[in-house]
């Protein structure tokens, strides 16, 4: 996703002179092409993310479309107040990009994990929160983000993630995309968990449970039309995210569901536990630790579905 981001922002920067790229001393060589084509619109702001975020807000208030890029914790929790006050309260159209979604940098330790960003960023008035499942959604979302007149947070993976969409889907920020139809249960995924969720769907299918799969690339604004439809239709909806179970996509859907009349839907939420994971390990190891595997998701969904159906 990282390389797709660099490629797409280079294209967008070529056609739109308002696009400015700010990086927090990261992405060595990644943005060489952008720099070549628009040297005066690339700023390495150093290891000083609070200032970088305010500078981006000041640029946005002066007619530019700044895009801020660094590793997720440093572009979110490190400078949260700058995002809250300078970006959101001013309604400054800044695109904030965090690379290394969820456990992408599991091996770098908890300082580099991002398991709170969706919860924090969606709490800010005026903020759009976007987590693409692959580079196709990333490119479409970045283009859409630069057309918005308000801030957008984009949480992207690292590199080498599989491509999910084999053709251009109809895309709109705030509108979920149906990846696969299904009869018995609905699996909702955001961001880079999609390959795991599709595998979980395959396992369920083999057990005779036909699973619909939805890509909720936008966590805020929430696609409540789609939610009404799936909670109205399926006895169980499972939400999967590489994020803490507190306050992320599962949290926002649960908040919404609790206030709905006439929906008796049941949901299951898959995400990380309320702990810092201090052990070293690969992203796959970390996902296993938190039960974010196709096998575990399929097993839990299938067991819960039996209980719900028996009730």
């Amino acid at each position, binding site marked *: 996703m990282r390389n797709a981001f660099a490629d797409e922002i280079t294209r967008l920067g070529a056609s739109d002179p308002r696009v400015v790229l700010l990086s927090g001393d990261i992405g060595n060589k990644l943005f060489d092409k952008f720099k070549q084509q628009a040297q005066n619109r690339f*700023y390495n702001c150093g290891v000083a993310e609070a200032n970088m975020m305010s*500078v981006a807000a000041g640029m946005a208030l*002066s007619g530019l479309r700044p895009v801020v890029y660094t590793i997720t914790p440093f572009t979110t929790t490190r400078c949260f107040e700058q995002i809250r006050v300078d970006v959101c309260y001013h309604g400054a159209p800044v695109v904030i990009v965090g690379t290394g979604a969820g456990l992408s940098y599991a091996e770098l330790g908890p300082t580099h994990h991002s398991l709170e960003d969706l919860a924090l960023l969606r709490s800010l008035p005026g903020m759009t929160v976007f987590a693409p499942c692959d580079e196709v959604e990333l490119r479409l979302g970045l283009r859409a983000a630069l057309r918005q007149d308000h801030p957008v947070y984009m949480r992207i993976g690292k590199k080498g993630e599989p491509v999910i969409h084999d053709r251009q889907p109809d895309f709109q920020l705030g509108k979920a995309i149906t990846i696969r139809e299904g009869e018995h249960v609905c699996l909702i995924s955001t961001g880079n968990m999609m390959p795991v969720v599709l595998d979980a769907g395959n396992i369920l299918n083999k057990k005779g449970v036909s699973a619909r799969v939805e890509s909720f690339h936008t966590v805020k604004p929430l696609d409540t039309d789609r939610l009404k439809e799936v909670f109205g239709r399926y006895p169980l909806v499972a939400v999967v995210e590489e994020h803490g179970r507190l306050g992320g996509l599962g949290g926002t859907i649960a908040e919404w569901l609790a206030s709905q009349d006439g929906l008796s839907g049941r949901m299951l939420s898959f995400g990380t536990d309320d702990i810092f994971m201090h052990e070293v390990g690969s992203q796959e190891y970390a996902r296993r630790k938190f039960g974010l595997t196709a096998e575990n998701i399929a097993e839990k969904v299938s067991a819960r579905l039996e209980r719900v159906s028996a009730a």
Partner: protein
Amino acid sequence: MDAKIGRLEQTARIIRARIIENSHRTQTPHLASCLSCVDILVAAYFEVLRIDPSKPTGKNRDRFILSKGHGAAALFQVLALRGYYPESMLDHYGEDGSVFAEHPPAPAYLPGIEAATGSLGHGFPLGLGMALAGRIQNQTYRVIALVSDGECNEGSTWEAAMLAAAQKTENLGVIVDFNKWQATGRSEEIMGPVSLAGKWRAFGWNTCEIDGHDMGELVRRLQQVPDGSGKPVAIVAHTVKGKGVSFMEDDNNWHYRIPSAEEVKAAKRELGVPA
């Protein structure tokens, strides 16, 4: 020139009287912090800045950012007198539903405001972004940010100082309202006695120190942004907290204290402003 400076000084006295009256009437604090920066605001808004209050969002306007947002009560009076909005609007200062909080609102809610400040260490970095944006878009506007000495405690102030110097942001000026106090004590006792001007110089800024209540000097220095050095400009303005009223000067109790009706009268007498 002398007559012009005399008029600016008279304007500053009127603004001081209005700030003191407002503090009493609305029971709002930060009086001494406001009084220490009145001369800076008057020099900027009534002489130096290239602005048109009838076009508060004009593309090439100079930008002035009150980074020390707790000086809002001073800025509100200056903007009204300068013609950004009717002075009668200030009758509603602090009332339920008013836009006049103790800190400036976002620009969308009050003409003349460039940034919602109040959390320290934000306005100056925002101003750096505005200054860089001007350069990218071939505009000639300048950005002046007024920071407090207490605000120089904030790390983000120095992050911005480094990037501004690295980028040779010469259309950016910072003026420090150096009144030697922060909210609860002497600035040098809280965060150390190292020279403030020396810090700005060490961070690569073309730095000068002036009397922050000398109107002629304020005008002259603020007009020298950019100053041709290729560096951003730091003006360390030595000021007195509570300036203009003998019983408030350099007494930090007036950071939060509210004046009584009698104190308002006495202050106006000293300022030579009719009751």
